[in-house]
Each structure stands twice: as C-alpha cells, then as structure tokens.
C-alpha cells in the first residue's frame, strides 16, 4: 500500500526532527533515584531541625529555628545535605544516562546534550543566586518555594530538548513552589513532595514509557 509508505515517511520525519534536537537518552531511573536521595535528605533535615527546635524549646516553624541559627551548625548541616543530595543525583543521572545512551547509540556529548544542559542550567543558576540572596536577608520561608519554582521553570524550559515528560515534572514543582508561598513554614514538606515524590513518580513514568523498550518509540515522547 502506498499509504503505508507515506505514514512511514511522516514517522521518519518526526523521528529525525526529534532525534536531532532532543536528548532522548535521559534515564527515567535516574529521576527515581534522585527522588529517593531527596527524601532521605529531607528526612535527615527534618531530624536536624527537630533537634535544633528541642534544644531551643522552640515551637514555631522550622524557618524560625533556622533564623536563630544562621552561621551556626544546623543550617550548615542542611546545606551539606542539600549539596550531597544534588551531587549524588547528578552522578547517578550521569551513569544511568550514559548506559542508556550506549544502548540507543546516541552520543552523550552531542549538540543535543549541550543544548539541553544550557537551557536547563540558565534558569537554575539565576534561581540559585536568587535563593542565596534570600538566605542572605534571612527570608528563609521563601527558600523552598524559590528552589521549587526555579527548578520547575528550568525543567519546563529544558523539556523541549529532551523527553516531554520533563515538562510535567517542571509544572508540578513550580506549582508546589507557588502553593508553598501561601503555607510558609512547611517548606520542607513541599520540598520533599517536589524534589522527592514527584521525581519518583515522573521518573517511574519515564522509565515505563521509554527505558524498558530497547529502542525508543518513534512517536511517543510528547
């Protein structure tokens, strides 16, 4: 049938346009792992805040406790946890993605990767600096919302250069961040929901949709 050739041609066009612009080897499993690290990190942070609160007989939100301790140990411990979670997540993502890229024969350092990295890092860097200035002025209640919102925007921005599911992860994080602004003092819970639970959920969705198949499907990633 001629129409089969036409449909195959259209599929080929779509596939080539996507393969040449999107980095499709992103591993869904690395999202799941990042979420698990974030949940462990959030749990440890919770313990540290509880300890600090107990030792101070404080009954306010954890941001108040932190505000009293700027420059002292609890906030430094929290920063260490955040950095360790980030590094673990990045290293895991690199290893798993590299493995997947070898399977799908996509070059891990191609133009697609650089475009993806650039579009992801730019909003993240601006947001990171903004978050530091929030810390500087001790506007601690806005730290978690700012992290979630800028991370979400980075995902939305980068999603056109990788698997489409990343866009929904971005929207989820950004919305959680916005809701968090109305519930100041619960930042850690929103942080755990955004960086922990939604990464596990969307990572699992991506894993199911793309990773388990030996070859990624031609028209399933938008």
């Amino acid at each position, binding site marked *: 049938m001629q129409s089969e050739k036409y449909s195959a*041609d259209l599929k080929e066009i779509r596939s080539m346009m996507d393969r*040449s*612009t999107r980095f499709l080897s992103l591993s869904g499993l690395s999202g799941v792992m990042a979420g698990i690290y974030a949940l462990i990190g959030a749990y440890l942070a919770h313990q540290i805040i509880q300890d600090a609160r107990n030792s101070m007989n404080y009954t306010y939100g954890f941001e108040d406790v932190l505000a009293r301790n700027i420059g002292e140990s609890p906030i430094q411990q929290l920063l260490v946890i955040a950095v360790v979670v980030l590094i673990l997540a990045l290293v895991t993502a690199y290893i798993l993605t590299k493995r997947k890229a070898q399977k799908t024969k996509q070059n891990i350092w191609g133009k697609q990767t650089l475009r993806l990295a650039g579009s992801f890092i730019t909003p993240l860097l601006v947001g990171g600096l903004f978050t530091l200035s929030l810390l500087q002025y001790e506007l601690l209640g806005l730290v978690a919302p700012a992290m979630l919102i800028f991370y979400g925007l980075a995902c939305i921005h980068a999603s056109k250069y990788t698997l489409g599911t990343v866009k929904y992860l971005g929207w989820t994080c950004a919305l959680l961040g916005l809701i968090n602004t109305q519930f100041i003092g619960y930042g850690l819970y929103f942080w755990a929901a955004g960086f922990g639970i939604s990464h596990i959920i969307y990572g699992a969705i991506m894993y199911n949709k793309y990773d388990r198949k030996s070859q990624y499907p031609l028209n399933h990633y938008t």
Partner: protein
Amino acid sequence: MSIIANLNKAFENRIRLGIMSVLMVNDFADFKELRELLEVTDGNLASHSKALEKENYITVEKSFIDRKPNTKYRVTDTGRKAFKEHITALEKLMK
C-alpha cells in the same frame, strides 16, 4: 491525483528525507552529525546531499576546523518551502 502531484520527487528517498528533517529544525548540521543520525555510509550521504544541493534545497559550506575539513549543511528558503509542501501533501494523503 492532484495531491500526489504535490509530493516532491526529490524527497522520495529516505536519506534525503532525513537530511531535510534534520536541517529544518537545526541551524546547521555537519557531515559527521548527519552520518550518525541517519546511520548511512559516507558515500551515500555525499551523493544524496549533492542531489539536494543541485535542487538548491540545501547549501554546503566547506571549511577547516583545526586543519580538519568540516562540511556544514544548511537548508535554503526554497528547500524549507518545498519540504513544508511535501509534508502537507503527505499529511493530506494520510487522511
């Protein structure tokens, strides 16, 4: 029959179709990138890109980067228009 007439013979071949698809969504692509994306041999890619160049659908820029020859391909306005018409014709035929 008239819709089939809108199909462009120059894009009938799978490799040419691939070259055009890549160039439509990228500012440019070099020889190596195209070869990897399309999974074709050097000779195949060279002859099909030459055919598209002859139709004035793509431009070929040759230069040297670190003394190594580098070939960059870009789509022309004519090529962009022709390929869009080809896609439209394909989509109509699918309906």
